[in-house]
C-alpha cells in the first residue's frame, strides 16, 4: 500500500502549494524539500525490505486484467532510488539557487509534478498509464527548461518540444498496434498473451516505432539534436534532474519493460542497441573535447554515458546487464553532481566559459572536492563507483564475443579521461588568467554545499559498498531482464 504514495504525495504537495502560494511567498521551500526527503526515505526503506519480491497494488479493488495496477519489482526499486535521490538533492539545491528567479513557487510546483510523473512511470503496470505519466514528465520538463524566459531558454525549449512530441506520438502508435494484437492494456496480461501465441508480424511492425520514440527521448546518436541545447540552458537543478534521471527513465525503463518483458527481444534488436550505443559513446566523447562551455561539455558527456548503458543492455549477457544497471545508478549520481558543481561555479563567478576560469581550487574547496569525486567516478578510477560499472560492461562484452567492440570501449575510456582532466585543469587547478576577479570569489551558501557533499559521499560509497549494492539493488534488476517474457506469469498470480 505504501507504493501508492510515490506518485500521489508529490501531486498532493503540488496542489497544496498552488493554494498556499497566494498567502505566503516562501512557503514552497520547506514543503517541497520535506516531501522529497520523505520520498527518498521511503525508497531506501523499500530497498532494505523488498529482497527480490514483487509487490502489486490493485487500484479500486478490481482484478488483474480489468483494472489498473501499480507494480513494484527489483528493476522499479532501482529506479525509485535514483529518482528520489536526485530529486531530493536538487530540491535542496534549488532553495538557494532559485533566489535569482521571481516565480519561485511555480518552479517548485513544476518540479514536484516532474518527480510525481517519474515515480508514476516506474510504478505503472499498465501501458497506457506509462504513456500518460511519460507525457506529464515531458510537459513539466518543457516548462522547466523555458523557466527563465530569455531568448536562449525559449529556443532550446521549442526544439525539445517539437522533437519530444514527435517521439511521443510514435510511442502512442506503437501502443495502439500492441493493443490491437493482444486486446488488453495490462503489461502482465500482454506478456502472457504474447508468450503463449508467439510473435505476430504486427508486433514486428510496432517494435521499430516504439524504438524510434524511445531513442528520441534517450538522445541516441542520430536523434540527439535537442540535448546539447536543452540541458545547458535550463536552470541548474533542472539540468541535474534532466541529465541524471529523465533521459534514463523515459527511454531505458520503457525499452526494458516493453521489449524485454512484453514483446520479446531478438538478437537483431540487441545488435542495434549495441552499435547505436557504440556510436553514441564516440560521438559524445569527441564532441565533448571541443567544447568551451562547461555545461555543454557535460551535456555531450551525457550522450556518451547513455551510449555505455545501451551498450551494456545490448550485450545480452547477465554481466553486461549488471554493468548497465549499475551504470544507471552511477551516472545519475556523478552527472547530477557535476551539473551542480557547474551551477555552483556559475553562481559564484558568473562565468560558464572554461577558458576564462582558473584557480578555483583554494577559493571554493567544497566545490573542488565534489568535482574531484564526480570526475574520478566518471573516468572510472577505483575505488569510485564508475570503475566497477565500466569493468562489468567490458567483461560482458568480452564474454558475449564482441572482442573488437570491447577494445574500442577500453579506448573510449581514454577519451573520457581526457575531457574530465580538461575540466579539472581549466576550472580548478591552473593559475587564473589576468582579467579574472579572483579575490572576490567565495564559497557557495550552506545548502548548496550540503547537497554537493551528499552526492559526493554517495559517489564514493557506491564504489566502496559495491558487493552489497550488487546483491541488494543490481541483482533483482538483472533478474527482471533475464526473466524476459516470464514477467507476465510472475505478476498475474498476485
Amino acid at each position, binding site marked *: *500500500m505504501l507504493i*501508492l504514495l510515490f506518485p*500521489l504525495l508529490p*501531486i*498532493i504537495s503540488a*496542489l*497544496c502549494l*498552488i*493554494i498556499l502560494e*497566494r498567502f505566503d511567498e516562501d512557503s514552497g521551500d520547506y514543503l517541497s524539500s520535506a516531501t522529497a526527503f520523505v520520498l527518498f526515505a521511503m525508497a531506501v526503506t523499500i530497498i532494505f525490505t523488498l529482497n527480490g519480491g514483487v509487490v502489486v*497494488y*490493485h*487500484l*479500486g*479493488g478490481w482484478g488483474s486484467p480489468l483494472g489498473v495496477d501499480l507494480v513494484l519489482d527489483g528493476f522499479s526499486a532501482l529506479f525509485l532510488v535514483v529518482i528520489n535521490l536526485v530529486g531530493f538533492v536538487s530540491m535542496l539545491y534549488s532553495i538557494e539557487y532559485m533566489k535569482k528567479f521571481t516565480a519561485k513557487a511555480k518552479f517548485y510546483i513544476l518540479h514536484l509534478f516532474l518527480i510525481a510523473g517519474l515515480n508514476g512511470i516506474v510504478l505503472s503496470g499498465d501501458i497506457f498509464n506509462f504513456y500518460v505519466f511519460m507525457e506529464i514528465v515531458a510537459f513539466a520538463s518543457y516548462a522547466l527548461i523555458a523557466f527563465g524566459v530569455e531568448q536562449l531558454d525559449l529556443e532550446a525549449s521549442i526544439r525539445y518540444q517539437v522533437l519530444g512530441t514527435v517521439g511521443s506520438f510514435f510511442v502512442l502508435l506503437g501502443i495502439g498496434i500492441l493493443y490491437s494484437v493482444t486486446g488488453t492494456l495490462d503489461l502482465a496480461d500482454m506478456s502472457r498473451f504474447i508468450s503463449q501465441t508467439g510473435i505476430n508480424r504486427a508486433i514486428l511492425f510496432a517494435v521499430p516505432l516504439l524504438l524510434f520514440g524511445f531513442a528520441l527521448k534517450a538522445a541516441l546518436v542520430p536523434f540527439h539534436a535537442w540535448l546539447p541545447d536543452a540541458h545547458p540552458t535550463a536552470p541548474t537543478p533542472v539540468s541535474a534532474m534532466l541529465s541524471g534521471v529523465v533521459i534514463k527513465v523515459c527511454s531505458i525503463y520503457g525499452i526494458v519493460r516493453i521489449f524485454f518483458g512484453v514483446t520479446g527481444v531478438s538478437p537483431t534488436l540487441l545488435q542495434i542497441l549495441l552499435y547505436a550505443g557504440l556510436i553514441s559513446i564516440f560521438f559524445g566523447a569527441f564532441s565533448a573535447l571541443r567544447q568551451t562551455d562547461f555545461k555543454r561539455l557535460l551535456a555531450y558527456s551525457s550522450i556518451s554515458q547513455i551510449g555505455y548503458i545501451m551498450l551494456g543492455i545490448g550485450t545480452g549477457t547477465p554481466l553486461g546487464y549488471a554493468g548497465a544497471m549499475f551504470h544507471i545508478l552511477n551516472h545519475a549520481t556523478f552527472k547530477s553532481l557535476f551539473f551542480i558543481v557547474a551551477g555552483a561555479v556559475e553562481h559564484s563567478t558568473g562565468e560558464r566559459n572554461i577558458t576564462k576560469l582558473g584557480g578555483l581550487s583554494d577559493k571554493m574547496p567544497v566545490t573542488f572536492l565534489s568535482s574531484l569525486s564526480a570526475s574520478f567516478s566518471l573516468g572510472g578510477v577505483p575505488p569510485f563507483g564508475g570503475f566497477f560499472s565500466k569493468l562489468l560492461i567490458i567483461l560482458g562484452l568480452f564474454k558475449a564475443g564482441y572482442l573488437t567492440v570491447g577494445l574500442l570501449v577500453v579506448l573510449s575510456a581514454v577519451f573520457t579521461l581526457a575531457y574530465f582532466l580538461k575540466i579539472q585543469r581549466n576550472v580548478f587547478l591552473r593559475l587564473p588568467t589576468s582579467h579574472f576577479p579572483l579575490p572576490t570569489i567565495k564559497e557557495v551558501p550552506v545548502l548548496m554545499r550540503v547537497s554537493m557533499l551528499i552526492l559526493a559521499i554517495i559517489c564514493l560509497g557506491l564504489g566502496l559498498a559495491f558487493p552489497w549494492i550488487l546483491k541488494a539493488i543490481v541483482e533483482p534488476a538483472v533478474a527482471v531482464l533475464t526473466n524476459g517474457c516470464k514477467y507476465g506469469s510472475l505478476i498475474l498470480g498476485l
Partner: protein
Amino acid sequence: MDKTIRILTSYVIGLILIFGFYVVIYGHILPGEGFDGGMLIASAFILCMIVYGRDEAKKRVNISSALVVSAIAGLLLIVVGFLGLIGIRDGHQFFLDNFLPQGDPHYLFSGGIVPVLNVLLGVLVGFGFYALFGYLVVWRGERGTDAEP
C-alpha cells in the same frame, strides 16, 4: 467584436454551459464523462473571453481564483480516493473504492462514487483549461502590443 456576434453569443453561451453540466452529471449513463464535459465548460468560458474581451470574462470568473478552484477540486479527488482506503465498505479497503450505494443501472443515482468523480473531474478540467487560456491571453508583450483580439 462585432455587434452581431455579441448578440448571437449571448443566446448560445448559457446553453453550452448547461450542456456541459449535463454531459458531466449523466456521465455514467450516457457517453461522455468528466473530461468531455469539462472541456465543454471550459469552452463556454473561453468563448466569453474571446467575444466580449478579457475584462468582461474576468468580472465573471477571475483567472487566478479559477486556478485555485481547480487545485481544490484535484485535492478533493484525492481525498475521495483516500476515503475508500480507510474502509467505509467492510472488506474492501482500496484506493478509489466504490463505497456509495450502487443503485439500479440506467438511473441517475447509481454507480457508487463514479458520478462524484465525474463532477470533480469536470470542475478540474474546465476551470484548469480556462485558467491556462487566461494566462496565455493576458500576457502583455514588450513592444506594447496587447495580445487581445
